[in-house]
């Protein structure tokens, strides 16, 4: 019986240390290779001896797939921040899967504009062909497609079908010397944009400021990949390891950080080395989204974009007609709080906008792939989420309240994603409420915000687009670039509401990076405001800091969120926090509804839940079984779930057989099953259904005839001929459609069936009927025998 076997080595009725073995149609796949953060001994890694005790793992595994839990890097924050430990925030437009990573773009890309130029576009030099380099920011697959492109005041906006399977929008910095066009102009198709690799790495990549390492920050990413070097280098595995590009880029950094702590700080021996991490990463094969990878002749895997609700990719593993989909719902991980969310998830701009407005998470994020098994995480299955509108309302309320009473608001954010979303929210709110208090955007954010804002145009609804055309304005009206001096005193020269002149610091709202208050401008401002008594005395309200996302342990952000009011800064300085601290989580992880929708959309035959405690999954399990009428499993670690499958086997039918079938006159009816007789020939790994004559001929066999015989005893004192006559007339009366003959030799035939009567050798009162039929008439023969066994009707005397 073919079957799929699933054994969690980690994450079975358990949280952390994700590692699941899947055996499908003879192929063995390991999903994730994570570690458990809670342990420092052997238990932190999955027990690979389950796979084999002494052999190389390569012999037992066909491939390893590492799934990433909602984490991605933004262009400005790529490895610099990653190394610093702050998981960077993702990029707009791509749901966190922009391959803005060194791994996939070692050489810069160039945009070449050929043919004519259009109104509003004046490339430098006015040549027919100009090239703009813009650094390492484009995915590999771009070279193949020609994106439709539009230009907004000096910024290029390109949309093309990329890895995400949907149109994605990228902002490309305009090359210097290009005149900004005053209007949004869509380029006619005549303008062709070609993306090519630059001939030489001529473009200097944006330098990344080194930030002191803060290692503990990265830890919680490791529960999907932490055990990888241990698994591949120390236990021994040489097969392929598949991950998506962002994962491939982040993974070694995380592992190295982790190694440093374990070895350098804690002094652990027998730990994997840097070289092992490098060797391990060499075995990694990076996968594009929606790219099907043929692992071998039969096994193929495909990464899907899991939508901004699930926040990450999911993998489909397929062998023949059998398949398994593995997905993990997103989690508010680090800077990834903005995670895989599309930029459009702000319902403040809701409308027909994006595929998934807040109320309708139902937009499909997986096709109806009908896998045999769907493996999904149940971490958030018990949540019923507050609506996004209420979250936004709360945010506006807090900001408005403070500003109205003359207070200041600091909002630490990451450079891209949530920041712009909140800005747009505030901007429109300010406009509507006619507020005057300035909103500042810390340097670096402004530029990106502009891009981001423009990105919205292609995504947002008609109404908003029109507004921008009409106002001819892409810049925020109320949001200004932040100057460091503003934070000091006494405030910028702006109009202030209600005659509050020099009596105190003016109300203002400041967005500053980074989002966890661990460095940079946000921390600077925080330090100035947090301890500044003057603020306290003169302003009616202490300043407020609103943390719109998750903060990792160890950061100032985390400390104030856990209620600390006295912070030890460097130099033994103690900072007393007098600000009001607000924590607002905007993360959009999947809740119970999301998981149910995922199951409903994928239509799996079975569901398997991981990453959850058994006693918290039981209700979900029952719910899935009731609602979708599928089996739902939640195995413990080391426990194997066996799913029998019925893979379909293709069989070719010979033309001759079909023709003969057709000759019988009846046209095939799609709705009715029809019986077809033939001979199955299994030869050279192929299956064919042919007529028996053809099969005999092909195989050089002679035809045999198969007959069944059976004796039926009848009480009948009369002569044999009389008995035969009675049998004949009885059969004639019953089998009206068949040709019943009484042969001269006394035997009776019905089609190929022969009935002969003889007197019993010992009891003359009993007649023995010998019934014989061929294999082809089996049905009639059985019927006839059963009929005769009931006896003959009383003869009319």
């Amino acid at each position: 019986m073919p079957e799929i076997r699933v054994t969690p080595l980690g994450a079975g009725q358990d949280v952390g240390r994700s590692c699941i073995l899947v055996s499908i149609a003879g192929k063995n796949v390991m999903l994730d290779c994570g570690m458990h953060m809670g342990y420092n001994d052997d238990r932190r890694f999955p027990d690979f001896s389950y796979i084999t005790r002494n052999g190389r793992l390569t012999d037992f595994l066909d491939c390893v797939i590492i799934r990433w839990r909602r984490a991605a890097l933004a262009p400005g924050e790529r490895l610099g921040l990653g190394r610093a430990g702050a998981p960077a925030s993702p990029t707009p437009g791509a749901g966190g899967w922009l391959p803005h990573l060194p791994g996939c773009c070692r050489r810069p890309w160039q945009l070449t504009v050929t043919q004519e130029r259009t109104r509003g576009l004046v490339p430098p030099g006015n040549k027919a062909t100009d090239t703009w380099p813009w650094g390492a920011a484009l995915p590999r697959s771009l070279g193949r497609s020609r994106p439709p492109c539009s230009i907004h005041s000096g910024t290029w906006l390109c949309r093309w079908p990329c890895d995400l399977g949907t149109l994605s929008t990228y902002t490309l910095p305009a090359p210097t010397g290009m005149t900004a066009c005053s209007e949004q102009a869509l380029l006619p198709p005549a303008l062709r944009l070609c993306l090519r690799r630059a001939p030489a790495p001529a473009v200097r990549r944006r330098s990344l400021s080194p930030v002191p390492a803060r290692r503990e920050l990265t830890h919680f990413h490791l529960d999907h990949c932490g055990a990888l070097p241990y698994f591949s280098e120390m236990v021994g595995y040489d097969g392929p390891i598949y991950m998506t590009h962002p994962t491939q880029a982040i993974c070694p950094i995380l592992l190295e950080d982790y190694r440093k702590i374990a070895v350098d700080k804690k002094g652990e021996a027998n730990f994997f080395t840097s070289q092992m991490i490098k060797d391990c990463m060499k075995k990694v094969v990076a996968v594009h989204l929606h790219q099907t990878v043929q692992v071998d002749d039969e096994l193929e895997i495909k990464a899907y974009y899991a939508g901004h609700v699930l926040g990450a990719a999911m993998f489909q593993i397929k062998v023949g007609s059998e398949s398994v989909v593995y997905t993990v719902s997103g989690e508010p991980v680090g800077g990834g709080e903005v995670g895989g969310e599309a930029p459009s998830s702000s319902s403040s701009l809701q409308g027909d906008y994006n595929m998934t407005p807040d109320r309708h998470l139902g937009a499909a994020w997986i096709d109806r792939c009908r896998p045999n098994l769907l493996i999904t995480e149940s971490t958030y299955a018990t949540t019923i989420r507050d609506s996004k509108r209420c979250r936004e309302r709360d945010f506006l309320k807090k900001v408005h309240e403070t500003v109205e009473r003359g207070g200041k608001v600091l909002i630490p954010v990451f450079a891209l994603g949530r920041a712009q979303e909140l800005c747009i929210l505030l901007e429109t709110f300010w406009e509507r409420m006619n507020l005057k208090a300035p909103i500042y955007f810390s340097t670096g954010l402004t530029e990106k915000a502009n891009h981001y804002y423009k990105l919205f145009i292609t995504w947002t609804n008609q109404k908003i687009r029109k507004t921008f055309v009409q106002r001819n304005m892409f810049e925020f009206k109320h949001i200004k670039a932040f100057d460091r001096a503003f934070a000091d005193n006494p405030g910028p020269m702006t109009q202030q509401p209600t005659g509050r002149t020099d009596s105190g610091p003016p109300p203002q709202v400041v967005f500053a990076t980074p989002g966890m208050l661990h460095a940079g401008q946000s921390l600077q401002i925080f330090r100035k405001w947090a301890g500044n008594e003057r603020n306290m005395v003169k302003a009616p309200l202490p300043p407020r800091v609103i943390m719109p996302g998750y903060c990792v342990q160890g950061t100032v952000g985390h400390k104030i969120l856990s209620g600390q009011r006295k912070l030890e800064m460097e130099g033994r300085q103690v900072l007393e926090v007098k600000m009001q601290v607000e924590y607002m989580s905007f993360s959009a992880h999947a809740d119970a509804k999301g998981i149910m929708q995922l199951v409903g959309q994928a239509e799996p035959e079975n569901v398997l839940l991981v990453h959850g405690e058994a006693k918290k999954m039981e209700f979900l399990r029952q719910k899935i079984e009731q609602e979708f009428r599928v089996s739902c499993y939640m195995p413990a670690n080391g426990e194997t779930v066996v799913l029998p499958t019925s893979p379909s086997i293709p069989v070719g039918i010979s033309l001759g057989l079909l023709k003969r079938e057709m000759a019988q006159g009846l046209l095939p009816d799609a709705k009715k099953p029809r019986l077809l007789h033939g001979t199955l020939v299994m030869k050279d790994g192929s299956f064919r259904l042919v007529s028996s004559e053809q099969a005999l001929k092909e195989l050089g066999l002679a035809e045999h005839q198969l007959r069944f015989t059976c004796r039926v005893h009848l009480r009948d004192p009369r002569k044999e001929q009389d008995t035969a006559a009675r049998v004949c007339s009885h059969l004639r009366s019953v089998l009206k459609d068949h040709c019943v003959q009484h042969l001269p030799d006394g035997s009776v035939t019905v089609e190929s069936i022969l009935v002969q009567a003889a007197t019993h050798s010992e009891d003359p009162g009993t007649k023995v009927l010998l019934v014989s039929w061929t294999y082809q008439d089996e049905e009639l023969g059985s019927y006839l025998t059963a009929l005769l066994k009931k006896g003959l009707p009383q003869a009319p005397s």
Partner: protein
Amino acid sequence: ASPPLPRALILPRAALARPGGGAWGEPRPARGPAPAGGRARSSREHAPDARAQARAAVAMDPAEDWLVDSLRLYRDFHAFGLPGATRVLEWAGDTGVFVAGYGSPGKNEILHLTPPLRLSAKENQGLFPERDFKVCHGGFSDRPVFDLKHVPDTRLLVTSGLPGPYLQVWQFGEDSDVVRAASTIAVPEEAEGLWPRLAIFPGAAPAVLHGARLSGLRIVDLQSQKTTFTSGTGDSEALSSLQALDADSFAFCCASGRLGLVDTRRQWAPSECRRPSAAQGAGGGQWCAEVGGQGSGPHVASLCSDGQLRLHDPRDLCHPMSTVQCLVPVPSPKPELLRVTWAPSLDSCLAVSGFDGTIQVYDVSSWGGAGSQAEPLFTHKGHIFLDGYGLGAAPLVTTHTWHPQRPRTLLSAASDASLHVWDWVGPAASC
């Protein structure tokens, strides 16, 4: 010469000339941040209809307006989507609340939810980002759940519904997240189309009071399933609400408006008001009632599907102390969903729902005798506006309940399976 257009008609059109878009996008030059005062609010809330019409005329989204107003009106406001609409919001202590579906047979979920941590936080509320309900127990009921009661200090629930003359007892586990059917309590009386109302007598030997009609009223011990009290009356009037008052007494309200207090230690001899006299204008609507209220004054409130609200002194049920007409569309489209509840920690406040998509909170302290119209202290319109319904297709509020501790916090559910938690800004807090 034609009269000049009212100002309200001009302004939005000017706004249209600059399409603002977005939920917050419409500029409102006429109004700055309005002061949040009780007086200002009530005058605004009943603003001339011309303005509302004008707004509708330029297809402005009233939901957006409401959302902006809500900044001022509510301290906290959370909205959730349940798997199914509920008629039940039953607190289990103050740490959990039960909801239960009443939809098609076979697919009704009974959920034990823990409210967001934010709600129960005493201080530093801002530090609790958790705004989500968590499902801590869940179960499936074959039949729609019309009433559900938690037995205090136990892990037992009792539900009532149709079809079938029985009550279902449920148990939710300590070591599992499943609510399991434990036993049933047979209901002997025949009651076509009526389902037994429920009330729980807590204590060492908890008992359930149930009955669809006066004649079928009985108290059954939950453990032994023995009947400890029967009304013994032949009166077959249909009940609408039951409420246990202390260990030996309960109150009932019949659909006709008949109110009564019963001492279970004695023979059936309720102190009651047989029928609201015709002079008081009882027009044959359906009634419900609740005993409660704090401090001095009337403690029994009864509400009719024609919008009439009465307050009674429990010692003299026959003569209502005040009778007012609520500002609601009447009659209620579904009188079974009428709810009147006393605020547990606000003096003389009660909440009313079941007429439309709103919940109204009234302050009864100033009510006089008879006949007057009552102005609500606050009206929650979130169920109409938050999910972007037009005014026509708004859902019907199915039930509401007060938070046991937080004075101005209510939970409300509507027929679109929405569940709102809101904390309106009271006059004291708005200074």
